[in-house]
């Protein structure tokens, strides 16, 4: 049966290596390979190290399609296991970026030992299954050529190592750097950040200063000439492995923990009584259970309490929180539990990830990726509506837009009399939010869906709603 030629969609984030390209068809993630990449793939598929990486779940599940589809211009086509939710490195916490770096290095080490290498070293080669990183760029493997250093080292520095150094040594959140620059931080910029005594911090002198100086000095030399010179000077695979070992050692040393923040103690210091919390947990559990499996988006996830409840019923949960330190603590907890269905992400709901890269679509905007069967918006509406001045109807429009038709929004309305709302209102001029009232909120909800469940928390100043969107 000939495959229909409709419904084929190129992945906008996969064009930089002309030898292979990811595309989507009928809900499947496929990768087309040209002749050369097909040869690399077949050598890879026959190797033990790749089989081990697949078996350990370190590389995303991949199979070649037989027979090769004839309606695409590729010598071979691979089918990849779907990653539950595509995220970008600037949405990860420090611990996530560090673990992604360690996975990339482990994949490279295993490849080098077996006579393979990776063409690149980008943070975008890694995605997540819950709190476990997975290497997705199967098209990056190729046979190693003796006497050649790792071609991906520069990218590894720019998108993984340098952001880690910036946070570990300078205490600056790395996310804005990666969000602003798709290719990461360049050595030249890093040298300016790490002047003076900072150059003596772990990894800085070699990977930043020497690296930058070498780039300047060899700007005119072609990489093929330099490769030949290195080969002639005796560069060996053992040296390449020693470099990887050095990088692993360095990244392991960079075990920085983002400090305490206002939000990291939120569950303990916030105004909930035990009864409130129990009622809320029960409501969330029931709401997600009635929707069945699917994707849950937990907005303002904090320590992940409700994400964990949602994960009892959902296929996977994306837990979004704006405070990087809180997300990092949640990630470490989930990772240590071996959790595979909750993905914690760093993002400010009032400033969600925009589209990035070429034409603004190479890295999809959060809104393009995040449609969910259930959206949890617990104790966040007042932060957006009062704290960030977002008009209440727009807050609800956004919640509805993130929900599939027929899906549910579970939303908490914090009454203006509630201590937390009063604290927020106290910082704003009097009478600035006349529409922030329960009746107004309820009529806005009714305009966007059908309220199928509602409960008032025992404290009497918060109400929970389950709204079926478009229902």
């Amino acid at each position, binding site marked *: 049966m000939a495959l229909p030629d409709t419904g084929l969609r190129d992945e906008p984030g996969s064009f930089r*290596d002309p030898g292979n390209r990811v595309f989507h068809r009928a809900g499947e993630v496929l990768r087309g390979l040209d002749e050369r990449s097909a040869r690399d793939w077949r050598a890879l598929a026959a190797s033990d190290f790749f089989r081990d990486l697949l078996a350990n779940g370190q590389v995303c599940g991949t199979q070649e399609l037989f027979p090769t589809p004839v309606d695409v211009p590729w010598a071979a086509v691979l089918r990849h296991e779907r990653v539950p939710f595509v995220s970008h490195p600037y949405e990860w916490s420090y611990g996530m970026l560090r673990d992604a770096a360690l996975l990339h290095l482990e994949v490279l080490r295993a490849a080098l030992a077996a006579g393979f290498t990776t063409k*690149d070293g980008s943070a975008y080669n890694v995605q997540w299954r819950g709190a476990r990183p997975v290497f997705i760029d199967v098209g990056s493997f190729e046979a190693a050529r003796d006497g*050649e250093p790792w071609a991906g080292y520069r990218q590894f520095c720019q998108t993984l190592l340098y952001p880690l150094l910036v946070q570990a040594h300078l205490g600056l959140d790395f996310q804005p750097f990666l969000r602003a620059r798709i290719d990461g931080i360049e050595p*030249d910029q890093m040298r300016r950040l790490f002047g003076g005594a900072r150059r003596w911090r772990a990894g800085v002198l070699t990977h930043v200063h020497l690296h930058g*100086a070498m780039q300047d000095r060899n700007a005119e030399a072609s*990489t093929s000439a330099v490769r030949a010179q290195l080969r002639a000077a*005796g560069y060996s695979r053992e040296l390449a492995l020693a470099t990887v070992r050095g990088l692993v050692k360095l990244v392991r040393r960079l075990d920085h923990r983002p400090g305490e923040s206002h939000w990291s103690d939120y569950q303990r210091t916030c105004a909930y009584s035990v009864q409130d919390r129990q009622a809320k947990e029960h409501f969330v559990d029931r709401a997600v259970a009635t929707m069945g499996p699917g994707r849950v988006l937990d907005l303002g996830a904090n320590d992940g309490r409700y994400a964990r409840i949602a994960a009892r019923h959902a296929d996977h949960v994306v837990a979004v929180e704006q405070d990087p330190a809180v997300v990092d603590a949640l990630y470490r907890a989930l990772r240590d539990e071996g959790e595979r269905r909750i993905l914690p992400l760093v993002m400010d709901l009032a400033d969600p990830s925009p589209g990035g890269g070429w034409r603004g679509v190479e890295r999809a905007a959060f809104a393009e990726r995040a449609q969910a069967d259930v959206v949890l918006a617990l104790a966040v509406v007042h932060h957006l509506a009062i704290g960030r001045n977002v008009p209440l109807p727009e807050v609800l429009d956004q919640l509805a837009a993130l929900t599939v038709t027929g899906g549910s929004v579970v939303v908490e309305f914090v009454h203006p009399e509630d201590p937390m709302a009063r604290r927020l209102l106290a910082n704003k001029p009097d009478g600035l939010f006349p529409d922030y009232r329960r009746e107004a909120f309820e009529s806005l909800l009714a305009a966007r869906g059908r309220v199928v469940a509602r409960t008032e928390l025992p404290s009497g100043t918060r109400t929970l709603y389950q709204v079926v969107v478009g229902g």
Partner: protein
Amino acid sequence: MTGEGRELAVTHLAYLDAGSGSLIVQAVVGGVAGVAVAAKLYWRRLVARFRRQPTDQG
């Protein structure tokens, strides 16, 4: 040597371009044996420069 004030020669290397300097620095990062390889590379470059006619220098 901070690179400040120099011409911006290499700020935007192409994707899948390993970068010449990024290749050489890996030898140095690889420990003593790597430093020896880098030293050898520079030594050969130096020798090659003296062997050439001055007009070859461009």
